[in-house]
């Protein structure tokens, strides 16, 4: 009950690779604590484990009157540039395709109440986020998640982020085929892949099954895959239309078609080729232009395509490209209950309202998808395990998160819908209105994000309350409009692709700043985020509910029969659209309307003083720096193993640390070295040892010889002395690796 930790308790339940990665991260935390790791390297390291910064983590907070220092202990101790060690942060948890089991939901609930504030937040990329997490708690949190098959690896940082997939895939009425198993294979293949470790920025992929629906929103992704079937030699052949270079952010780009049809066996190697081109040619210094969309725009899609095709030819074969295809015929989801039908019984008004908005008829007769409408994407720990039990009862493992910050239960047998509704209602999750105007998407904004300018969640909560109160009287024409809100121009709330979007900014009135929202009208959610809206002007935050009323009223009055909101905005044009909001654009003086100078849900006088440096972009550090760091961590672990009187483990870790360091060095010249120890040593020897590049001015080849000796003469039964010696050699070898990389210049891709 005292010295046993989660690491020991869960040793047999965690997959070895995940357990080892977490140990390495914990080792890196130790090294950081001892100031033995560069703060930028550690920042990127933790970001790649999903351990993110949060507002005020620079130790400053504006209290409405002035910016004040938050008196954290050990203010010299940091976990990244301007990020204090003890300041709480956010943990992002990747959920590929949003797919969850009840056991996983249980565990998420448990870690939320032990390590955060008891709230699980679903993001616009089907992830979960926990807030106010202390970094010391993160390794154990990761272990507990790993024990149920969840990894946080590459949830942030300059990496491949969560692979999203339509939450209806597999049960959709209009899809070409189920994209789920492809997205799963894709996520698994790219997780930790060597070719995705050297990006200048993040990389977001998505999978869709339908062209005309919103589905996976492929047009706004770095890389998007749209299911297609093509006839080849008289037989139907599965593949994907592949898009590249889309993205929202400050400068939204619609994705370009990389390939009209990529056969299923080619999607992984083609992606690998794209990753290599992006890693090699993408911007690394200017983070504002480092997403792949800028590279595609700069090169032009034809040249980009040519480079990818050339790159594809050089890739060494990998069995994993096609191995998963053999399992596809057996891929299926298993419903918990047999198909049934809602008979003609009379149900309550509330049930019928919920049925209309929150229930989708599956392609499979007798089954439905139920959307659990989460207010602002939040649910409590208690609601989570209660929801897990409901899922166990009605749908088993068929749970998914959605990019609209909800959760869906798939494969609900139709006759169960009334009972399911009552059970959801009993836990506070029976709200109707999923996917309608009241189901507003919002990023964290100023609540927790370092970049937030205005309170996106505060505004979303207010609009939700006001619109829900009058939902019964809302005209049909506006009931299904989408409202999406971002706290700044970075578009995490996906405001560009909503009918009515907002992003936070500010304006000055006299000596005071006033929270504002830029109004974006006419974006398209359907057609995979088919077009982006028009920015028509900024209005004070406190006027937004009235602005929404005014715009929607005008639309209802002026629309022609069947005219969509996008069509109406397109018809009236930007000038007229701006004139609608013009009356709200006047700025009162502070003395006239002081309430305009604070934000929704936050009574402090508005200030921009809390905006920090965002970590969305990650830290630009070299591939070598990232890859040498685990080597150092393993050498550190080796010392701990020796202290624990385990020389065999210590010796093995010391050797492994040398291999990792050698591999990091080799990969500055030769990316495809792979993981085989023989190959790593062979390449190290031919490239750095035989050429004497690794040689020290005085010690000559001594340090490199340590690795060559250990590799060719393993010690089958190391004792404490021999283990200690190897650890010392490993430390010297790692130091020599650093010296060599500095001397040679690193990151020079001389051979592919």
């Amino acid at each position, binding site marked *: 009950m005292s010295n046993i930790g989660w690491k020991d308790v869960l040793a047999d339940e965690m997959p070895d690779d995940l357990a080892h990665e977490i140990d390495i991260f914990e080792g890196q935390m130790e090294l950081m604590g001892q100031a033995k790791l560069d703060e930028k390297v550690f920042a990127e390291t933790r970001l790649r484990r999903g351990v993110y910064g949060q507002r005020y983590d620079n130790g400053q907070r504006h209290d409405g009157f002035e910016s*004040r220092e938050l008196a954290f202990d050990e203010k010299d101790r940091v976990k990244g540039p301007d990020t204090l060690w003890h300041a709480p942060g956010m943990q992002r948890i990747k959920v590929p395709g949003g797919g969850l089991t009840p056991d996983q939901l249980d565990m998420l609930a448990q870690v939320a109440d032990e390590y955060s504030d008891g709230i699980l937040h679903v993001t616009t990329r089907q992830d979960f986020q926990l807030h106010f997490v202390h970094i010391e708690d993160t390794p154990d949190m990761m272990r507990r998640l790993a024990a149920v098959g969840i990894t946080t690896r590459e949830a942030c940082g300059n990496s491949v982020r969560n692979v999203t997939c339509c939450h209806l895939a597999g049960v959709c009425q209009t899809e070409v085929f189920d994209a789920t198993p492809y997205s799963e294979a894709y996520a698994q293949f790219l997780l930790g892949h060597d070719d995705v470790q050297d990006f200048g920025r993040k990389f977001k992929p998505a999978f869709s099954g339908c062209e005309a629906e919103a589905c996976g929103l492929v047009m706004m992704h770095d890389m998007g895959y749209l299911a297609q079937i093509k006839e080849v030699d008289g037989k139907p052949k599965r593949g994907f239309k592949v898009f590249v270079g889309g993205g929202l952010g400050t400068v939204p780009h619609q994705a370009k078609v990389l390939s009209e049809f990529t056969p299923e066996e080619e999607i992984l190697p083609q992606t690998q080729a794209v990753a290599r081109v992006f890693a090699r040619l993408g911007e690394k210094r200017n983070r504002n232009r480092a997403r792949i969309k800028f590279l595609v725009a700069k090169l032009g899609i034809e040249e980009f395509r040519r480079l990818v095709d050339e790159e594809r030819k050089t890739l060494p074969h990998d069995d994993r490209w096609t191995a998963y295809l053999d399992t596809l015929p057996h891929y299926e989801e298993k419903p918990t209950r047999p198909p049934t039908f809602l008979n003609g019984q009379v149900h309550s008004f509330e049930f019928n309202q919920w049925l209309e908005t929150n229930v989708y008829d599956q392609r499979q007769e007798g089954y439905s998808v139920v959307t659990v409408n989460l207010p602002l994407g939040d649910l*409590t720990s208690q609601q989570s*395990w209660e929801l897990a039990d409901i899922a166990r009862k009605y749908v088993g493992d068929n749970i998914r998160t959605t990019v609209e910050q909800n959760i869906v239960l798939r494969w609900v047998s139709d006759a169960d819908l009334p009972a399911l509704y009552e059970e959801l209602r009993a836990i506070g999750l029976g709200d109707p209105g999923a996917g309608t105007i009241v189901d507003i998407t919002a990023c964290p904004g100023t609540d927790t994000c370092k970049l937030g300018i205005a309170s996106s969640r505060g505004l979303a909560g207010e609009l939700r309350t006001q619109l829900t109160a009058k939902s019964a009287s809302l005209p049909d024409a506006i009931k299904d409009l989408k409202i999406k809100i971002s706290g700044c121009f970075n578009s995490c709330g996906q405001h560009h692709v909503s009918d009515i979007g907002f992003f936070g900014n500010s304006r000055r009135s006299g000596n005071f700043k006033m929270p504002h929202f830029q109004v974006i009208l006419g974006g398209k959610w359907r057609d995979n985020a088919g077009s982006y809206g028009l920015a028509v002007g900024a209005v004070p935050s406190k006027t937004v509910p009235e602005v929404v009323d005014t715009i929607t009223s005008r639309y209802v009055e002026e629309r022609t029969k069947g005219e969509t909101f996008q069509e109406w905005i397109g018809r009236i044009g930007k000038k007229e659209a701006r004139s609608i909001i013009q009356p709200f654009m006047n700025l009162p003086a502070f003395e006239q309307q002081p309430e305009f100078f604070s934000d929704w849900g936050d009574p402090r006088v508005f200030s921009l003083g809390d905006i920090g440096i965002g970590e969305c972009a990650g830290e630009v550090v070299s591939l070598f720096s990232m890859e040498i760091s685990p080597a150092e961590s393993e050498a550190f672990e080796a010392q701990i193993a020796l202290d624990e009187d385990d020389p065999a483990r210590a010796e093995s870790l010391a050797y492994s640390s040398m291999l990792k360091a050698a591999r990091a060095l080799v990969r500055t010249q030769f990316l495809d070295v792979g993981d085989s120890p023989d190959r790593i040593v062979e390449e190290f020897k031919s490239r750095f040892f035989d050429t004497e590049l690794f040689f020290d001015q005085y010690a000559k080849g001594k340090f490199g010889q340590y690795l060559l000796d250990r590799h060719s003469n393993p010690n089958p039964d190391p004792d404490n002395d021999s283990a200690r010696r190897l650890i010392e050699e490993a430390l010297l070898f790692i130091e020599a690796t650093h010296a060599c990389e500095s001397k040679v210049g690193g990151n020079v891709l001389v051979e592919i």
Partner: protein
Amino acid sequence: MIAPHRLSVKFFFEELSIDVEDFIPVFHRWIRENVVPNELLLDVADYKHIVDGPAILLVGHEADYVVDLTDAKPGLMYVRKRDAGSDLSEALGTTLSQALNGVKLTESDVELKGKLKLRTDAATIVLLDRLNYANAANGDGADTAAAAALSQISDNLAPIFGDDTTVTRVANDPREPLTFELSAPSAPDVDTLLSQLGSAD
């Protein structure tokens, strides 16, 4: 017994004649005026949109103060997250005295005074530590830690809350943290409790 990873104490409102969102400006002021001794207060989190959960949080470095509506029992919950003490007894003492300080601050706050009252004759105590205090089923041998914690908590609280104090374990779902209910029909007022805990300010 080892100090739990986190420990919370929730006192219930006897009266509450304001909306939960009225706590938001109060908590912001508490941060600005640094009203809680020995604790660093950081931010206010607004979760009033969630049904039956934590509505408004005053988030701190060592502890959170939560206007909590869970189970339709509104109350002020104090969640001690770190530096509570070296063992369960010390952690309980720290948590309880700071929770009672929170009650006192709330009841006497210039904007809240007269609009709410918290009871001291009942509370919920939660050990948020499934590693050391698993919420295993009663009587199956796996709940040794839970039984020992119950005994420890009872022993510690009776002298403070009165001889008729009872602490009972809540038979909740094993996935939930280990939870106890305190009943103390003759509990004294907050100042007396703080005085008996030796932490009156």
